[in-house]
């Protein structure tokens, strides 16, 4: 009946009761019917509009993200005035560990902190008791030998500031001592609301062209000098740091965390889901099926935030007491992945079961008829025959894991962290979007558009997986 149109129905229908005089077998126009059809079609189009909307929104905001100019204070590490400790032994240029005077004081240093020892700048990698593990010769300094008792100065990232007051027509900007090297000729800098272009550099004095896109304004001494930081595609896909405050937008840490949690989830869900599916499709009596399927449905229907709670308050503490002790963070990728595995197991098992049940009986009988056991039949005939459906199911499961939000938002960690340690806390793409957007974001700010760049990446990944799954399911279908 789908081929029938809403235009005049078969003529017999027109023979309304009093309408025989004109023998109204002619076609009639029925505006009401046409309007209804149009309205119904519009309902159908809402779903198309949704897709279009998703794509337009994600990608237009992503383009805004890559076009957004963020102005960030030009910073460089500077040694503080008070030393925190002194070296306990002399060290040579090749050593990567410092012993320091008071063992307790390693706690005042932080990982990733820069320190100055003599004329050399080092970066702290780790701070076990009484020692500092460091990377030597950072920021263009050279590695030297240092005698015992050398003072260790912590370094802080300081912003470049102007030294003098500037009037509307001054063409020189003097920046804090030692900061001139941060700038380059042709670069745009910003003081207060005014953008200028550097035309020459002489030590710490920058010659500038004023008022690039606004009126020149006077600036007080000690104003912060900002430089432009425009997120680039290359940085986005290659940098391993995602730190909006310092203008660093590298999506890799978010992607790795997403992949790791999903991987853990798949490690749980694939064996569990497939094995359940095999049992239900090949072995289970109707009664067992009748008990197990509702349980799986319940597991699939539990809101994901509950799984997040479960991961946070049950899985992690259990892992801590049973296996890892203090090595496991209170939020971590392992627990989040395990919970996600439980979440997608029912999905995978029901899709796999459908695929397995679709394998014709005749193939099984052929195998049994040759004297195969049930196991041999299942493994060597049924599963290979159902392989397209099964792989489609696994891909859908993966896509679901990648897009899952609440479990990772609660249990995986709040803060991007580039690590492959499953026991560490690391934020996934979805977790990041959720966390950033739960603060009140101002529309159009770089934080706002940055989550759309993450969202677009997420969409492309999941959409790709879904399309792949559909393709496998339809194209590679066995012709049995």
């Amino acid at each position, binding site marked *: 009946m789908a081929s029938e149109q809403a235009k005049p129905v078969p003529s017999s229908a027109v023979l309304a009761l009093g309408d025989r005089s004109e023998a109204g077998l002619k076609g009639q126009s029925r505006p009401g019917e046409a309007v209804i059809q149009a309205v119904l079609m519009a309902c159908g189009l809402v779903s198309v509009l949704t897709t279009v909307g998703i794509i337009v929104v994600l990608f237009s905001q992503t383009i805004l993200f890559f076009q957004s100019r963020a102005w960030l204070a030009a910073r460089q590490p500077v040694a503080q005035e008070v030393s925190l400790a002194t070296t306990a032994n002399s060290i040579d240029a090749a050593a990567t560990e410092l012993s320091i005077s008071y063992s307790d004081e390693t706690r005042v240093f932080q990982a990733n902190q820069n320190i100055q020892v003599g004329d050399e700048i080092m970066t702290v990698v780790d701070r076990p008791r009484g020692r500092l593990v460091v990377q030597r010769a950072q920021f263009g300094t050279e590695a030297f030998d240092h005698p015992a008792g050398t003072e260790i100065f912590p370094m802080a990232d300081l912003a470049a500031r102007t030294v003098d007051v500037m009037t509307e027509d001054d063409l020189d900007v003097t920046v804090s001592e030692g900061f001139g090297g941060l700038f380059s000729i042709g670069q745009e800098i910003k003081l207060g609301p005014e953008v200028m272009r550097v035309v020459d550099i002489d030590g710490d004095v920058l010659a500038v062209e004023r008022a690039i896109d606004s009126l020149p304004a006077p600036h007080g001494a000690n104003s912060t000098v900002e430089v432009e930081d425009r997120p680039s595609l290359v940085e986005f896909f290659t940098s391993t740091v995602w730190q909006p405050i310092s203008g660093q937008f590298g999506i890799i840490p978010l992607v790795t965390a997403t992949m790791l949690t999903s991987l853990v989830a798949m490690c749980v869900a694939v064996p569990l889901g497939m094995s359940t599916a095999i049992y239900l499709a090949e072995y289970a009596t109707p009664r067992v099926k009748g008990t197990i399927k509702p349980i799986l449905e319940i597991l699939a229907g539990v809101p994901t935030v509950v799984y997040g709670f479960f991961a946070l308050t049950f899985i992690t503490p259990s892992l801590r007491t049973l296996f890892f002790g203090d090595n496991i963070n209170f939020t971590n990728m392992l627990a989040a992945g395990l919970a996600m595995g439980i979440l997608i197991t029912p999905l995978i098992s029901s899709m796999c079961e459908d695929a397995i049940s679709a394998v014709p009986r005749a193939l099984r009988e052929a195998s049994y008829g*040759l004297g195969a056991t049930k196991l041999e039949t299942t493994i060597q005939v049924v599963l290979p025959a159902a392989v397209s459906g099964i792989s489609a199911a696994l891909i859908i499961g993966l896509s679901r894991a990648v897009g899952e939000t609440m479990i990772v938002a609660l249990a995986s960690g709040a803060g991007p962290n580039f690590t492959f340690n499953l026991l560490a806390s690391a934020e996934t793409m979805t977790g990041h979007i959720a966390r950033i957007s739960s603060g009140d974001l101002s529309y159009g700010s770089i934080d706002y558009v940055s989550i759309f760049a993450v969202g677009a990446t997420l969409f492309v990944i999941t959409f790709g997986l879904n399309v792949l799954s559909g393709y496998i399911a339809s194209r590679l279908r066995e012709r049995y």
Partner: protein
Amino acid sequence: MMPNTQTNPSAIPARPNAIEIKKVDIYYGSYRAVHDVNIDIHDRKISAFIGPSGCGKSTVLRAINRMNDLVIGARLEGEIIFQGRNLYGADIDPVEVRRRIGMVFQKPNPFPKSIYDNVAYGPRLLGIKDKATLDEIVESSLKRAALWDEVKNDLKKSGMALSGGQQQRLCIARTIAVEPEVILMDEPCSALDPISTQRIEELMLELVDQYTIVIVTHNMQQAQRVSDYTAFFSIRRTEDEATGKDTRWGELVEFEQTDQLFSRPAKKETADYISGRFG
């Protein structure tokens, strides 16, 4: 693990691959599909089962290699004796029974694998891994199934890419590759054209030198052409006066040498059926 080969030669039946079906009733759940079937299937002969649709031919055939075990709720009463043992005895393993009593189905059902893998499937299950041995088995099986010449150049081709008749011969090759002693065939030609049918019939006549063959067919000419013995099944009906419930079951009417059954049927029912006056 040695099989408990019988040491007393006199215990080996004179007709090792004969099958005796004794007082067999088969149920699907509470429904009795066939009742009181007794047949002596002779060694290295072709026996045909004929009868109207639904009379239980497939049911009895599938009972012989315990294929019905796979149907939930299916159950058999009585005995089927093979090589001196009741196939439904407590110590009998259905997997082993099916290896020894192979089956070819109505619709060709090759695995979605290559021709080679289809035939090698059974031998591999039985632990044969050596490539040369497998090659040999595949070749000889395909030859015996009269398919070798047609497929020898593309053994890697999917079994499902063959024609219907070739697929059915592939299924036969697959069955004989595990060296069964009996081959059961359930309407093996019903999905095939006359030429393919003829090839399969010729094949059966060749194979009967080595195998006991039981075939279910709706085609009485076929039964006459290939079989040595024929069993005619029919449907019995009773109506329970009290409840008005109609009970039906299949029953063996007659089992005779084919010539005799078709020329001088002992029962009127048989005569009616073979002369087309059935129903």
